[in-house]
């Protein structure tokens, strides 16, 4: 099979990337391993999606459906139940239910999302019992199959999925006995802490972690303790809490194993403002690139990657000199890390802060000049910040900082 653009992953980023690539006049093949488009949105039956992108509040499946309908109304070829085994130079190797297929293409958009960090990755101690699951697995268990992980739950980590699941479990009649967060603050959205935890009076203990999971065949309880400044448990504070399941919401990891080895990586894979990686013709968008707070943001990123992957494939992508984006120690990362020195128009820098800040400016400097300054009442580590920059003001490398 031959096509201009292959998009890997049919979640919000992949669907919007396919639509934009197609709009440029490129032929597009969209591949997903599941039997329907939508990705993780399909299991997110709660609302709160779409406020930014569709200007109205939708559930996950509704959000997915809107994009999927557009995909099916376009000329995009959709391959479902298909797994991309390997990405080569202008080639994608796919395992389909009927065998293997090789697709020749000119550009590739990787939109294959993220996976959840596991008990093993955080060295959770104890036995490997039934009843310890990632929050996303439980979300699928409840929302797709109507099954429960237990009736007395403990949640480790206060990422957004954990917060959402605290509410979901409570609504399903499961007692959420406590949420433990090893950090002094949550990495989740403020609205989720309010709507999913505080409104349901679920205890959320900061600076606490689980030290041991105990039980015979299933989980029967956990030991938990306060942690010191180095995040080591203070054993004298260790207590027992009876429960029959443990949900983990301890972070997401981009599932970028398909990228060629030579792709340049820092904390995340290095891309430019068009979302192209250091390997020509390979673009990325969505959680596979960096972890987004909102599906809306992943969708917008998909549009950017799709547009330029489409232009690249039909040989209409202009080349420019590039500048680097550096950042201060108040910022944990910036995306993109490279910017094309275009003549006009705007682009957005996304960043996460290392700490919480009140009434500060996000500043983008070029040399000694502030080329952009944005006032923020509150900046939290849990919420991605964005700042818009005009291309015409770029003289050299950029420096992103938070200050007065």
């Amino acid at each position, binding site marked *: 099979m031959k096509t201009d653009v292959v998009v890997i992953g049919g979640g919000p980023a992949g669907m919007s990337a396919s639509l934009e690539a197609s709009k440029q006049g490129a032929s597009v093949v969209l591949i997903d391993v599941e039997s329907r488009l939508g990705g993780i949105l399909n299991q997110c039956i709660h609302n709160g999606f779409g406020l930014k992108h569709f200007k109205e509040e939708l559930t996950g499946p509704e959000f997915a459906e809107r994009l999927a309908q557009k995909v099916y109304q376009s000329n995009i070829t959709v391959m479902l139940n298909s797994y991309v085994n390997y990405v080569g130079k202008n080639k994608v190797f796919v395992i389909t239910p009927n065998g293997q297929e090789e697709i020749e293409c000119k550009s590739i958009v990787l939109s294959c999302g993220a996976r959840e960090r596991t008990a093993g990755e955080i060295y959770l101690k104890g*036995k490997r019992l039934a009843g310890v699951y990632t929050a996303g697995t439980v979300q699928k268990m409840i929302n797709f199959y109507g099954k429960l992980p237990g009736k007395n739950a403990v949640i480790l980590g206060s990422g957004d999925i954990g917060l959402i699941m605290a509410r979901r479990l409570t609504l399903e009649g499961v007692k959420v006995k406590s949420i433990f967060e090893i950090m002094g603050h949550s990495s989740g959205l403020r609205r989720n802490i309010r709507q999913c935890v505080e409104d349901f009076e679920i205890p959320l203990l900061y600076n606490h972690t689980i030290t041991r999971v105990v039980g015979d065949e299933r989980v029967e309880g956990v030991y938990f303790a306060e942690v010191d400044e180095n995040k080591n448990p203070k054993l004298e504070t260790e207590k027992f809490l009876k429960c029959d399941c443990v949900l983990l919401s301890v972070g997401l990891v981009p599932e970028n194993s398909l990228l060629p080895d030579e792709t340049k990586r820092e904390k995340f894979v290095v891309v430019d403002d068009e979302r192209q990686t250091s390997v020509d013709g390979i673009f990325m968008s969505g959680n596979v690139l960096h972890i987004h707070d909102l599906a809306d943001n992943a969708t917008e990123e998909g549009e950017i990657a799709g547009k330029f992957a489409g232009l690249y494939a039909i040989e209409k992508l202009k080349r420019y000199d590039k500048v680097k984006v550096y950042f201060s120690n108040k910022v944990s990362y910036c995306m993109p890390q490279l910017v094309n020195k275009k003549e006009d128009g705007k682009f957005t820098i996304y960043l996460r802060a290392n700490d919480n800040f009140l009434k500060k400016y996000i500043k983008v400097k070029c040399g000694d000049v502030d080329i952009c300054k944005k006032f923020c009442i509150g900046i939290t580590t849990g919420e991605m910040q964005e700042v818009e920059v005009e291309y015409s003001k770029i003289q050299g490398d950029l420096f992103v900082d938070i200050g007065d």
Partner: protein
Amino acid sequence: MVFDYAVIGGGIIGTSVFNKIIRKGKSCVLIEKELDLSTGATKANSGLIHAGFDAETGSLKAKFNVRGNALIEGLVKQLKIPFKRTGAVVVGNDLEMLNTLCERGIKNGVKDLEIIKDDELRKIVPNLNEDIKYGLLAKSAGLISPYMFAIALAEEGAKNGGVVKLDYNIQNISYKNDVFTISSDIEKIQCKRVVNCAGAGFNDVSKLLGVEEFPIKFRRGEYIVIDKSDFVKLSVFPLPTALGKGILATPTIDGNILLGPTAEDIDKYNTETTSLGIDKILNYVKTTFKNVPLSKNIRQFSGIRVSVGEDFIVQKSKKDGNVVLIAGINSPGLTSAPAIAEYVVEELFGEKNEDISILPRESYFQGDSGKIVCRCEKIGENEILKALNSPVPCLTVDAVKRRVRAGMGRCQGGQCMIEVCKLIAKKYGLKLEDIKKESKNSFVMFKGDDYEN
């Protein structure tokens, strides 16, 4: 019917003996109390086929290790399971001790042993710290999946007329007119001869048989599993101590890296991982290696080694000549298993006829994989279905995982566990809430309505 033999215990020893008996053309039943084979020490060890220089010359361990190592190649070919002779190296600065080990190995009959240093050592272990100077290289060591080895042996036996009884909780064993009757709550099995290789449950079975019990000790070994990496390409041991072979770094046959085991004497069978154990491993690897890919850490587990004194026990019961006792099988038990089976069947039971020709086992990995279920390990629905339809029942999520590796990857089943539950449920006509992770009460999930208050 009255079986010629009953083998009690479905670990690597039990499945090896079971397989050997079937190859001698005799009838045999393999009895396991858990829902799957290889759920004890067999599922939680380093997965190594040892060369045989460690054990005291003249011991059963030395004899069975070297013989087992030689038998393995033919066996894995027939069983269609992967095995690689990657070699192993013991590293350290005590040249004298390495030489002693080397000499012992030669006395034990180990071939291809050599002391290496400098560039040669760096070349085979590039990530070894600079201050470690010497190594004893044993080329005959290799890698195998211990649980897959046991399962394949049982599957081949079952395909050729052997009977595998899982979830068989023995309540009573009686002996009358040269026939043993082994009863559970619901069933009776009759046989002429019995092998007790019940591992940690050895004494429970001996008690029911009215034969010798031994003082069994438990030693816990914790491990860290790292996702696929070429950090080490062969097993790297420190110099051995009284507690065992020490913490090693080894690839597995599937490409993962194992760091461990620790060695901690414990009173009760307990497979918990502990902060103490994990920290011990982390500290050790940092002093021995550089570039340890700890960021790719995906799991920890612990295995329980049983021991009865220093050596293996493989003998006929002095109280009943129709019973063979196999106990205290710790390292190198996996390597020794084929040799122990050969010795038990041919020497102790006197089945000296040539092996009969038997039907080969079928691999799960033939033809199209179908829709991919486990994304990390690239395991397809067709492969899981083949495992579910193989001659030994595959009843649990962990049973599927051991057979095809669905859930063994970096997401640890986060994405495929429920899909695997669905396939098991469909195969056995069960509901999702009936599916278990491993043991009888390890239900993965519950029905929603149970919790209406």
